[in-house]
């Protein structure tokens, strides 16, 4: 079992002819993911390394029955690619692209309310991977192994580091989910944690957060209300200098939340173990 992604998902790659899209579509296929098509406007009717290319997501869905997508298109066009996927009935959207303007994402979030079935990971995320089943995005499968640990993370590279250390320690993963490091993103920690909570194959949980926003605090509240998962949290950026603030608007909205300290305290008071280094995540999980 796993969450979000299973062997039946038919996956598109938006931007499959680009350098990254092309490389990672290949990696996704090597892992056994059903990559049923690519979408590149103007390249419809061609094939890219054996994958049929369509001009639009609508066309691709009609021809292939795709229900999931990985987005690799350049930042200026990526928000529109998300809207297109949602509007065409895609229910799992992993947006890998980084550097999307925040106002574009605020409009995307509003648009997605009309498509409650559509789940968005990212942007600026590595996507997701279910060991032994498949992946959408760029998480390197060689470091993963099947097992009981769910991982949900804001940072891509720290995710790889953690899964590699877990695999080395003999602890496999159920699903690894990147939610992205941008201030305005799709699924939040709480959304993913709630799914892990319902997944019988997941018994342990690693939460990899970052300074900024209060998604980690909300996750801590959720876990504090009762959870069957053995959880460990890690917050990156405890020594990062505070941003040089100019106005008050940010403080009015977020108060004191958002610091590494606030997040770590929230997890501790919810009974979640807090790791100080990525190596400790594994240590604490094996003990849990």
């Amino acid at each position, binding site marked *: 079992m796993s969450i979000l992604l299973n062997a039946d998902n038919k996956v598109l790659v938006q931007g499959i002819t680009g350098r990254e899209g092309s490389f990672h579509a290949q990696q996704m296929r090597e892992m056994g993911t059903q990559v049923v098509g690519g979408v590149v406007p103007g390249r419809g009717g061609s094939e890219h390394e054996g994958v049929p290319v369509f001009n639009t997501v609508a066309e691709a869905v009609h021809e292939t029955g795709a229900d999931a997508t990985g987005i690799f298109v350049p930042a200026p066009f990526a928000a529109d690619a998300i809207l297109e996927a949602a509007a065409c009935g895609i229910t799992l959207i992993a947006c890998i692209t980084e550097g999307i303007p*925040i106002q574009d994402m605020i409009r995307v979030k509003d648009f997605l309310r009309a498509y409650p079935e559509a789940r968005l990971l990212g942007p600026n995320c590595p996507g997701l991977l279910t060991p032994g089943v498949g992946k959408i995005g760029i998480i390197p499968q060689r470091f993963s192994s099947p097992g009981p640990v769910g991982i949900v993370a804001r940072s891509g590279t720290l995710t790889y580091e953690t899964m590699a250390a877990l695999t080395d320690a003999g602890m496999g993963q159920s699903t690894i989910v990147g939610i992205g490091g941008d201030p305005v993103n799709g699924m939040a920690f709480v959304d993913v944690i709630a799914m892990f909570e319902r997944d019988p194959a997941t018994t342990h949980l690693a939460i990899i957060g970052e300074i900024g926003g209060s998604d980690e605090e909300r996750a801590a509240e959720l876990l504090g209300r009762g959870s069957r998962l053995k959880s460990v949290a890690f917050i990156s950026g405890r020594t990062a200098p505070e941003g040089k603030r100019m106005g*008050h608007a940010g403080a009015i909205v977020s108060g004191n939340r958002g610091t590494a300290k606030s997040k770590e305290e929230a997890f501790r008071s919810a009974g979640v173990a807090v790791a100080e280094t990525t190596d400790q995540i594994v240590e604490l999980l094996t003990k849990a």
Partner: protein
Amino acid sequence: MKLLEYQAKEVLASLGIEIPAGRVAHTPEEAESACRELGPVAVKAQVPVGGRGKAGGIAVVETPEAAHAAAQRIIGMDIKGFKVPLVYCETALEIAREVYLGFTVDRDARANILMLSARGGMDIEQVAEEAPEAIARLYPNPWRGPLDFELTQLVFESGLGEHARALTAVIKKLYRAIPDFDALTAEINPLVITEEGKVIAGDAKLETDENADFRHRDLVEQYGAILETDELEAEAKRRRLTYVSLDGEIGIIGNGAGLCMGTLDLVQRAGGKAANFCDIGGGARAEVVQNAMDVIIMNPRVKGILINVFGGITRGDEVARGLVQARDNLQLKLPLVVRLSGTNQEEGREILKQNGIEPGTSAWEAAQKIVAMAQ
């Protein structure tokens, strides 16, 4: 991009919001002639950070001579780590009432939030804490912007109903900074209501989204250069690197913001201090790695470099090739520790080994190694 006050006011003026008469002065002489032209003025330090009044960066002067002296004192002054590049000389307003108007991105709501309060002025954060109901809030629809009746509600809710017509007009104009300039935060505090009922921006703060710079080339060209007070950050920006100067001695290169921040944490844990944050991001190529190293060694405080790359989208062999090339091109003499894993890691580590760079396996071990070598 965090704009300076005069730049933010120019943008507000372009949106049709009234601002006080003012002149930019790069020298005491320019401040003197601004005062001669405008009469009594406030000479204000231009820095992209709050609290300049308390730091002595604002002087109210009556005469051109006094303006000269004030500008001489303020230009070049250090305010919270920013060297004041210039001052803005602005006429004083006859204030009947000061209110607070602003918007920002509410990360939890994943939306823009507009805020209006009758209790404007210095203590707005205290108001937010003690009497949050004194700040009226609106989440405008991001596709169509705020509707007239929503703004009217906002104004009446804040207790400023008697100025509804003038205020709704100003809020509407300020909101345009979102669709027109990709603003993330804007703040007018105080927003001054004069005896005649005119609404004027007493101060202005504006931050735009650098991810959207491609849509606002003109704004970046007009205002970008003067905001770069840190030479290394400016140089890194020219090379399209994500780089922040810090005050330690270990140069850091990493891929991904989380990993990079985590590397800073590890260096501190190992007893060292990072000289910078440099995220080479996904898809880093040889030239990017070389650019990053090049900028880092421009910093004379750097005693060693730690490179931490765990590749998903970044391929280890490319990173390794870039590293070797960069080290050779730059004739690097400083201690260098490299932690490389991920996609094509074996190829990458092999390339490093062949070229005399020992690759580390764990980030914690690598951090301890570089801190010891830099001592």
